């Protein structure tokens, strides 16, 4: 006795072992998990999401709404359709109650992506798609053929029809071999197109398997022309018990018999409104399934049928059997309900309510659809994209017409892309005439709670009636009210059925009602696949300076500034961050420290109008800056808020170097280009980024002059020869350098710029002087905050003006205009209650305020809404002050110096005193050493 009791006689293959819901089974290579389960007589595969009803395999490919499984081994993956999981040896899976669960373990598999370009993309390798690809390929065009199945042919292996005298599957294999011979053709099997976006950009997922270099690959395909040969899905009918395991689409049963050699049952009833189900009945009968009756909605029945009884003009009014079909109740239409019906014993009920062309991608592409009364289906109509729809996807129902249509579409697409299609004759097949189909959406009954329209979401006709009863008239609203069509299957089997039922309930035409919007993804896709290689260490670029290796070797801990890694502090053995930062701060204030500031943005401006451009963009006057000098500058947006700050160095009469904050380097260059190109094209100035051309070392502290003198013996470093805010060319550590005397700490300080290639040599020389402590961004932040120097983006947000920051001195009154000036004269910018940058000293000198905390005026919190006066922007421990301190933006803050305010922290009101924002060396005595 075979171990696969529902395997068709004579069907053999390589045996694969698998485990489902804790039991061991065998299947054959080439099976899907669903096929193998049916071969073993497993009927109930999953339970439904809302009602917990047992559910079986309903379809044979991606349209499956029921048979959801979770893979446990070899890799955990939730919510897959058993009908699309290719069986492999050792697979462990279990059925799902509607929802899966994410694994707690990291998925070790690689996922990746590829960009592809082609003249013609053909989606679907069924009869029409293969024909399209063959005729396009013959033109020499670059063709991509993407198909989601493991083998080509689309429905041909399901129907076992004949093409050009060959069994369909053989013809498809030969067509594929021919395509593989074209050097400009790429065939992507197991590759489902899931999104169709603007300008013929399509995204597809290739399932490559465990042994490939990546388990799944996301193809991003840009096509000049697209041929959609996506076929059609059969749809169900809403009748009582239509969700029982054993109720199956007729075409799916045919696929199990022909493609997989599996009998989905022993004794079948066929319920149909068209002729295609008769072919399924014939194939099932030939495979040994007893066809008990064909129940045909149409009074005239279907084409000649020499099998069992045909009950024309009948409906299925009930299905019995708790865990699977055991009998089917049939009544004449209009039926009197189950009581008046006849019960037929069966374990399988095939349903065919009609065919829905797969227009999802066409809809996603912005194509309009029209309802065709004769076909009872939505067909593609107008579109703005360069796309052809061929075969069953545009409503053709016979094989011969699909083959011819595909060939013509492929030739048209190649020609539209500028190629000459050859005269390859289209493949041929014999078409059989069919009787006209009827369109039945639901079987009338007194109680609609067992008439399912969306099996995955457990939506019944009763639910739809509740929606229409609540006054909803649009299918989009009904979808949201009932959730019909929102599951992983995106309503492939339920979408039009829902529309049909709504139309029936409202007494309107389906054509008038339409259907819901098609959106990507057509099939479910994992986030891992969408992320591709952008995971882990490659999630986002990590930018490092030429000195990075040194920082790492010295145990620096890093801070992320945008994509940059900057040393935050350099802990010594046993030091935590506060200890290390206090030590680094003290070293700079008492001796000398050095910091890698290479990340600062640097823009080289050249041209006779460079000074004019800077005058317009910075709030201060730059044109009066002498060659050899440096000036601090602030840039505002037109609305007057601070955009960025930095220094401007005049290198020559017509050449400047502007620095930016680390995070804004690209934005400031773009800003300059934007104004130059769009507003002031007559200004003769060119801006070039040199951010990474230079490595920059900040040398700060009263001891820095001696260190510099030691490294640059040729440079006169005394205060008179090298004053504050000037620069000198020099050799430092025997490296060509530009030394700028600027300070971001209030101490005597220099910034030494050398070629990035020489940055490490300079840094090592500075460290080698023996008197210099390396310090990081945290120390820099403390030192600048002690001096009240704001950090753009930390002490500012999109509302803060230079005047708010106490930088009124940096606003030129002499210039007629600069970007932002007009806004600084608006009443809103002159209000006395604007938030000013001030200092805060907690009463408890050891109390570190949390950044972002609010400030209130009273020691006791009033009832909400609590009037907040501002918030803490920066908060540190200061070695120089011997206490904690903070900077804050406070309403009318400069008028509040000396006032006591409170910072609510948890349940506590922490008392603080407002001070001026410059807390350390307000006279500026230290900057000259």
């Amino acid at each position, binding site marked *: 006795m075979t171990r696969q009791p529902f395997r068709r006689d004579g069907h053999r293959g390589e045996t694969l072992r698998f485990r489902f819901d804790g039991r061991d089974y065998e299947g054959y290579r080439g099976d899907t998990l669903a096929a193998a389960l049916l071969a073993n007589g497993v009927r109930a595969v999953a339970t439904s999401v809302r009602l917990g009803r047992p559910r079986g395999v309903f379809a044979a490919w991606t349209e499956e709404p029921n048979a959801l499984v979770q893979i446990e081994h070899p890799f955990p993956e939730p919510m897959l359709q058993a009908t699309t999981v290719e069986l492999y040896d050792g697979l462990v899976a279990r059925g799902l109650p509607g929802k899966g669960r994410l694994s707690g373990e990291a998925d070790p598999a690689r996922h*990746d992506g590829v960009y592809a370009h082609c003249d013609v993309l053909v989606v679907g390798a069924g009869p029409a798609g293969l024909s399209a690809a063959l005729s396009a390929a013959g033109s020499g065009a670059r063709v991509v053929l993407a198909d989601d199945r493991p083998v080509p042919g689309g429905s041909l292996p399901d129907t076992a029809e004949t093409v050009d005298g060959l069994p369909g599957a053989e013809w498809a294999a030969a067509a594929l071999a021919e395509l593989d011979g074209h050097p400009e053709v790429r065939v992507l099997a197991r590759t489902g197109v899931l999104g169709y976006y603007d300008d013929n950009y399509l995204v597809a997922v290739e399932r490559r398997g465990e042994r490939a270099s990546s388990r799944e690959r996301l193809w991003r395909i840009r096509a000049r022309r697209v041929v959609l040969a996506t076929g059609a899905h059969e749809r169900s009918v809403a009748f009582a018990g239509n969700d029982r395991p054993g109720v199956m689409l007729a075409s799916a049963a045919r696929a199990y018999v022909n493609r997989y050699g599996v009998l989905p049952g022993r004794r079948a009833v066929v319920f149909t409104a068209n002729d295609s189900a008769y072919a399924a009945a014939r194939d099932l009968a030939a495979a040994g399934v007893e066809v008990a009756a064909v129940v045909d909605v149409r009074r005239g029945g279907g084409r000649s049928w020499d099998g069992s009884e045909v009950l024309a003009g009948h409906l299925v009014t009930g299905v019995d059997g708790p865990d699977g079909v055991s009998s089917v109740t049939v009544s004449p239409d209009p039926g009197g309900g189950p009581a008046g019906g006849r019960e037929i014993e069966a374990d399988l009920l095939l349903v065919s309510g009609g065919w829905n062309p797969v227009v999802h991608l066409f809809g996603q592409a912005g194509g309009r659809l029209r309802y065709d009364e004769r076909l009872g289906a939505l067909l593609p109509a107008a579109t703005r994209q360069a796309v052809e729809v061929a075969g069953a996807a545009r409503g053709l129902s016979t094989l011969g017409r699909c083959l011819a249509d595909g060939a013509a579409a492929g030739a048209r697409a190649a020609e539209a892309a500028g190629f000459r299609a050859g005269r390859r004759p289209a493949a041929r097949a014999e078409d059989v005439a069919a009787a006209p189909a009827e369109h039945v959406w639901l079987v009338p009954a007194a109680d609609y709670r067992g008439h399912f329209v969306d099996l995955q979401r457990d939506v019944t006709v009763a639910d739809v009636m509740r929606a229409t009863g609540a006054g909803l008239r649009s299918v989009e609203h009904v979808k949201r009210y009932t959730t019909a069509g929102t599951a992983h299957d995106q309503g492939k089997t339920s979408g039009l059925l829902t529309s049909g039922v709504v139309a029936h309930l409202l007494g309107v035409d389906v054509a008038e009602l339409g259907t819901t919007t098609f959106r990507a993804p057509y099939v479910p896709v994992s986030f891992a696949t969408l992320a591709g*290689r952008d995971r882990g260490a490659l999630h986002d670029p990590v*930018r490092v*300076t030429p000195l990075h290796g040194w920082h790492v070797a010295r145990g620096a801990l890093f801070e992320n500034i945008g994509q940059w890694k900057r040393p935050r502090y350099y802990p010594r053995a046993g030091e935590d961050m506060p200890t290390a930062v206090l030590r680094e701060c003290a070293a700079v204030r008492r001796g000398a420290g050095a910091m890698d500031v290479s990340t600062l943005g640097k823009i080289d401006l*050249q041209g006779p109008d460079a000074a004019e451009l800077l005058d317009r963009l910075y709030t201060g006057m730059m044109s009066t800056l002498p060659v050899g000098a440096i000036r601090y500058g602030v840039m505002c947006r037109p609305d007057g808020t601070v955009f960025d700050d930095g220094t401007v160095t005049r290198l020559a009469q017509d050449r400047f170097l502007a620095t930016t904050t680390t995070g804004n380097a690209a934005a400031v260059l773009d800003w300059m280009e934007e104004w130059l190109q769009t507003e002031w094209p007559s200004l003769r100035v060119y801006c070039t980024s040199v951010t*990474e051309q230079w490595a920059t070392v900040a040398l700060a502290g009263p001891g820095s002059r001696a260190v510099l003198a030691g490294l640059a013996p040729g440079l006169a470093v005394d205060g008179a020869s090298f004053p504050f805010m000037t620069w000198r060319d020099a050799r430092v550590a025997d490296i060509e350098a530009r030394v700028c005397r600027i300070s971001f700490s209030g101490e005597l300080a220099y910034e030494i710029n050398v070629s990035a*290639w020489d940055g490490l040599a300079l840094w*090592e*020389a500075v460290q080698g002087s023996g008197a210099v402590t390396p310090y990081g961004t945290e120390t820099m932040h403390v030192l600048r905050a002690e001096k009240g120097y704001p950090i753009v983006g930390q002490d500012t947000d999109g509302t803060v003006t230079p005047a708010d920051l106490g930088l009124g001195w940096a606003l030129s009154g002499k210039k007629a205009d600069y970007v932002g000036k007009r806004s600084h004269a608006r009443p809103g910018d002159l209000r006395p209650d604007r938030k000013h940058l001030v200092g805060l000293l907690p009463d408890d000198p050891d109390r570190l305020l949390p950044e972002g905390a609010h400030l209130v005026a009273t020691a006791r919190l009033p009832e909400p809404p609590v009037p907040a006066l501002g918030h803490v922007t920066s908060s540190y421990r200061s070695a120089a002050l011997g206490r904690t301190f903070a900077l804050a933006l406070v309403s009318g803050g400069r008028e509040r110096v000396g006032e006591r305010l409170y910072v609510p922290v948890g349940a506590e009101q922490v008392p603080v005193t407002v001070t001026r924002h410059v807390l350390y060396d307000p006279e500026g005595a230290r900057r000259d050493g």
Partner: protein
Amino acid sequence: MTGERPSPPARFEPVSDGDLRIAEVPFRTQVNLRLDPGGPAAGDIGRALGVPLPAEPGTYGSADVDVLWLGPDEWLVVGEPGRERELETRLRDAAGTGHVAVTDVSAQRTTLLVAGPKARDLLAHGCALDLHPRVFGPGRCAQTMLARAQVLLVARDGDEFMVLVRPSFAGYLVAWLLDAAAEYVSGQPG
């Protein structure tokens, strides 16, 4: 200068397989050039370089240097290492008093060589441009994205590409390239 120049910015073990080579070509001289292509300096500079400034977007010309189109008024002159001074001077002399910006940016980008029959396949993992030889063959260059880094991509003869990238991004980009290259290097799953 006291010491040797540091290791090349990208610093990695080069890949040299039958179908794929990846290596760094560091320290090449690069000079950024901006001027009005319709102005009088354009011709003089072209003559000084030995090749006219390419006017067609996305192309480059070659003499003893490559002159790459970056924008309608911007080019990158690329030469062997160590020629910064000489090229800057040559260009400034040719520019005369015209409104021309000449900027040494040699350390602003490093160069990665990606070559071999699989080079296009490898780059296609992260580059949205059509790299088919009919579209992006020798003589073409483009500023675009490769993975998540901005690059200047240069197609040369013999399935050879030069990928110019900011040194700060080089470590990331090399890690990305090596990860993507795994399937093209022999002994790895395909």
